[in-house]
């Protein structure tokens, strides 16, 4: 266990020491009690701080910090227990402060407590922390202030180790039944996979009966119509190759990025449970992380690979990510891009055509919605905002402006995606979910919907 003492006369203390001495001596010289009494009081305080130091110099405390778990999900709770032992012969009133990183915030009990510890007594103190941010958090050490005049004379012991805690992406708040998830995957397979005859469950076509076909596969209605034996043919089970692109650049930061990351984890864990292949590519200017989760491995393992991803804020280069994928020979895949509508859109989506040439299906998942962040036209802000009140801009002008701006950008992205046969999906906010969004998209591909669409076009 680390133990460090922090003892120092502060600047305040030095000033008071000087002031008190001058005040007492001056008061005595001119015989004025108005100076003597406050001066003496200053002396009392400073002397008291010194005496506290002298009487507590040999006092030692034992501290042990215990955590309820080593990793916690963002917006999750963690309990900290600290056991403090007073080895001195006298009872002490001490101030105990728990240090923790910016990822956490205290619930109900503040981080600083004044407690009285009896001699040879061990006291257990508990804090409940809420993980408010994702990343590498830490808790500890504990500071024990021994004297009551810390603003004048710092007399502290810093005890305990720094414990690191991994704060993983947040848990999805919407519960989606497994049936829906399975349905989504089936629809994706049906729509995106190459159809090959084989021994699957999905119906492919009818053909004449051949020797060796199973009787249960004979289509009796067709046989009756044709007056010859007709049997059913099935599709082979086909694996899809999912590529998940996560944008770390541009304006992907804050809650938006956190939600995007959580969505990646959620979608990946769904795919991981099936026979489909999966690769996650987190990219900014370069490919920062390339993860191929193994089938059957749990979600935690995946999250431990992804939890410390941080947005970089620089313009991301999608082209490089696509070239990387090409080098890995990941053709015929379903590419799902998790990004937003900020920055230079045409520049941002450069590389889609290359992806298309690799015969991949593209789905763009947009996280630029009103729940996550605001976007505004820089030109408008420069030219017109000068003539308006700031409150008015924030309250009325900006939200409507942002909506218009989003719409324009969405149309642009849709146009680009149309040229490559891609799809556009919105995660509308916290009440929405990437799986639900994809489910909505796949509904658009359903045979009835297709017939209706074609009828309208026709």
């Amino acid at each position, binding site marked *: 266990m680390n133990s460090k003492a922090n003892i120092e006369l502060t600047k305040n203390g030095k000033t008071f020491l000087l002031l008190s001495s001058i005040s007492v001596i001056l008061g005595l010289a*001119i015989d004025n009690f108005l100076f003597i009494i406050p001066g003496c009081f200053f002396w009392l305080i400073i002397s008291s701080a010194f005496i506290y130091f002298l009487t507590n110099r040999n006092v030692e405390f034992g501290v042990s910090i215990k955590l*309820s778990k080593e990793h916690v999900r963002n917006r999750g709770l963690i309990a900290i227990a600290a056991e403090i032992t007073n080895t001195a012969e006298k009872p002490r009133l001490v101030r105990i402060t728990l240090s923790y990183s*910016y990822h956490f915030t205290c*619930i109900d009990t503040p981080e600083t407590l004044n407690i009285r510890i009896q001699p040879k007594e061990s006291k257990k103190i508990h804090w409940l922390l809420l993980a*408010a941010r994702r990343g590498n958090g830490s808790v500890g050490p504990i500071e024990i202030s021994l004297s009551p005049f*810390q603003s004048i004379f710092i007399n502290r012991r810093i005890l305990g180790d720094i414990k690191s805690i991994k704060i993983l992406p947040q848990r999805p708040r919407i519960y989606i039944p497994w049936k829906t998830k399975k349905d989504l995957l089936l629809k994706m397979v049906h729509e995106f996979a190459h159809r090959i005859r084989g021994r699957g469950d999905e119906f492919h076509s009818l053909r004449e009966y051949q020797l060796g076909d199973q009787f249960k596969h004979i289509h009796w209605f067709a046989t009756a119509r044709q007056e010859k034996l007709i049997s059913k043919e099935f599709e082979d089970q086909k694996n899809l190759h999912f590529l998940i692109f996560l944008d770390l650049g541009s304006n992907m930061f*804050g809650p938006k990025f956190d939600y995007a990351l959580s969505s990646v984890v959620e979608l990946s864990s769904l795919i991981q449970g099936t026979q489909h292949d999966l690769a996650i590519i987190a990219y900014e200017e370069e490919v920062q992380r390339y993860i191929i989760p193994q089938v059957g491995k749990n979600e935690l393992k995946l999250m431990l690979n992804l939890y410390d991803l941080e947005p970089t804020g620089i313009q991301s280069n999608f082209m490089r990510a696509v070239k990387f994928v090409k080098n890995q020979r990941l053709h015929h895949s379903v590419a799902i891009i998790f990004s937003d509508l900020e920055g230079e859109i045409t520049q941002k989506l450069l590389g889609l055509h290359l992806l298309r040439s690799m015969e991949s299906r593209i789905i763009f998942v947009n996280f630029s919605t009103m729940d996550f962040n605001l976007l505004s036209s820089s030109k408008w802000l420069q030219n017109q905002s000068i003539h308006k009140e700031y409150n008015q801009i924030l309250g009325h002008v900006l939200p409507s402006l942002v909506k218009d701006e989003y719409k324009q950008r969405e149309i642009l992205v849709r146009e680009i995606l149309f040229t490559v046969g891609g799809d556009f999906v919105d995660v509308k906010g*916290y009440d929405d979910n990437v799986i639900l969004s994809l489910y909505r998209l796949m509904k658009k591909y359903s045979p009835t919907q297709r017939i209706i669409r074609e009828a309208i076009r026709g």
Partner: protein
Amino acid sequence: MRIRDRIFEEDWEKIILSVRGSNIAHLTHHISGAITFALITIQSAISLNYIPFAIWLLLGVISVSLDFFSNESIGTASYLRFGFLLIFGTIISMFLVNFDSIFFQSTFGRIDIILWQIIIGLFIVVRLFTAFFYMEYFKSDFDIVKPRSNYSRNQLEQYEQNLIKTDFEFKKIASTSFWQKLSNMLGGFLWPLIILTLLTLMGVGYAFLIYFMIPSNAIAELNVRPALIFMAILYSVLLIRASAVLPKTMMKKTSIPENQDESIKKV
């Protein structure tokens, strides 16, 4: 900590927790400051010192309005401002006062003047004490969160219940009471008070020693003041030296961490 997140704000309410009793400490601090200025102003009025009366009234109004109407919390700036106003008023008054003022040097021996000075001095002490007390126990406002929505309330409740089921003991602990804090702070003044009393007695004794040593035909007057000034200078030097030396003595005592210890052994 600022989190720009709608869902976070819906679930958790950010609260700046102020310690119980902070309002009382705040009020005592401000009122004692106001009484200090009021007493000086009243004394100036009684002793018919019109110009100092006007000056102290003005300074009092400035100090009280700054205390009550500015959002500044009690800290170094507030008591330095108070001290500055007090010294500024004293310096001006010393030049402009008439006979009965508490700032007129020739009247300083009078009991009524001494009483005024002591009472005003004590109110300054009360203000200073509450300032220190406040800074020590009440100043730090803690940022905490409290559950706001049903979702977070349930989350917290379930987490606490589950913790109790595990071997991780969870029990909330109460902070010490206001009176314990006050007695702890006042208890620290006992030894310094004894030391200062001893110092004063030594000063008086020193004055008597000189008085008896001087031949009776010379200046046969007992004057304690120079001896007390001498003691005050000595005590100041002692405190300044102690402030320089004491932290260093403790730093030398701190043990070498275990890993460094091992490296020394290997060498």
